[in-house]
């Protein structure tokens, strides 16, 4: 009886998650449809929905908060301007990130063309507020925070082409097909960049923080 009850609990959980996902999707589709009809409130809802993810992605690419803010605004202006041409059957998120990426790359070409080359650069990234300690945490929490900080620094030093793929996969949790759509590249290219990005990241970690063991 106990395994049966356990199975029922798992099934309920899965149905619940699926229901929430459907609700999110239906909400998103409704907002996109309203924006296509010229409803500015829908734009406000979309901006609020994607603010954290889009800002994080743009900051990951350009590495300057002021530039990321400006590109954030430009991306949404472009969304509003081109929404009539958006095919509702397409993945809105992939389209949004494609627009953001194109704007970011155009910006980098104009302002920092050297950052698009395959060379490492040293940039500092402001410590997120969530990493600033308040109460003295447990040792394992300190170690975990230190590791994520090391990872953030190592990722920041990667060339843009690897940084963006890692960001889209691990931070935005996109599928490979979605990443291929954002990058406008074949799936094989995405896998290749993902693998080389991870290898470069690991080499960077081992070079900067040789005493850290990743197990």
């Amino acid at each position: 009886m106990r395994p049966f009850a356990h199975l029922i609990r798992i099934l309920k959980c899965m149905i619940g998650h699926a229901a929430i996902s459907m609700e999110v999707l239906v909400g998103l589709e409704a907002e996109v449809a309203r924006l296509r009809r010229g409803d500015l409130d829908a734009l406000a809802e979309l901006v609020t929905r994607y603010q954290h993810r889009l800002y994080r992605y743009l900051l990951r690419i350009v590495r300057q908060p002021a530039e990321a803010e400006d590109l954030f605004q430009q991306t949404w202006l472009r969304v509003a301007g081109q929404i009539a041409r958006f095919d509702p059957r397409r993945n809105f998120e992939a389209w949004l990130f494609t627009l953001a990426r194109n704007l970011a790359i155009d910006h980098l070409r104009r302002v920092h063309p050297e950052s698009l080359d395959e060379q490492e650069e040293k940039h500092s990234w402001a410590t997120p507020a969530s990493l600033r300690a308040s109460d003295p945490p447990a040792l394992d929490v300190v170690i975990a925070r230190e590791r994520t900080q090391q990872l953030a620094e190592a990722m920041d030093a990667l060339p843009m082409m690897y940084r963006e793929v890692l960001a889209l996969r691990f931070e935005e949790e996109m599928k490979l097909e979605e990443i291929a759509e954002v990058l406008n590249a074949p799936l094989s290219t995405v896998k290749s960049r993902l693998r080389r990005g991870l290898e470069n990241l690991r080499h960077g970690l081992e070079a900067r923080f040789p005493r850290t063991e990743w197990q």
Partner: protein
Amino acid sequence: MSDKTNARMTEHDEIRELLSLAAAGALDATEDQRVSAHLRACPACAAELSSWQAIETGLRRIPTPQVPADLVARTIARAQMRFAEESDRRSERKVLALVVVFSWIFVALSWPLAQLLGHGWLSLLGVGFEQGWKNFAVFTAFCWIAGAAAAILLAMRRDRERRIA
């Protein structure tokens, strides 16, 4: 070194190259089967996979940077302003187009109207009208071209002012 050892080493190297993608969940079904089969017999690769999994878990946990407090509000305000400008521009273009069409129609009707008011119905069929139609055509064409040129110059000026503003 035997061929079997060479083949095993090549297989081992190939699998090692796939481990980072395996930890990222980025293998296709065939690659996944190959890697799983190899890992059952290779503790070194299994340990390497654990390292990759630790790195990738860490990547998923990098804190999200805080969005500036007023960024969303500024973005929405900018979009509203752009919408309003576009709406104004569309209205002005419509008004301009209506004015141009009205002026063309008015000019086209002005000659027969002038004849009608000045000399009555018969003069429309008279010799004077037949000889004067060329002058009328030139006059009409000139007015149309002048009207269109004025509309275009006005629109260009307004666009320039808007860009400067």
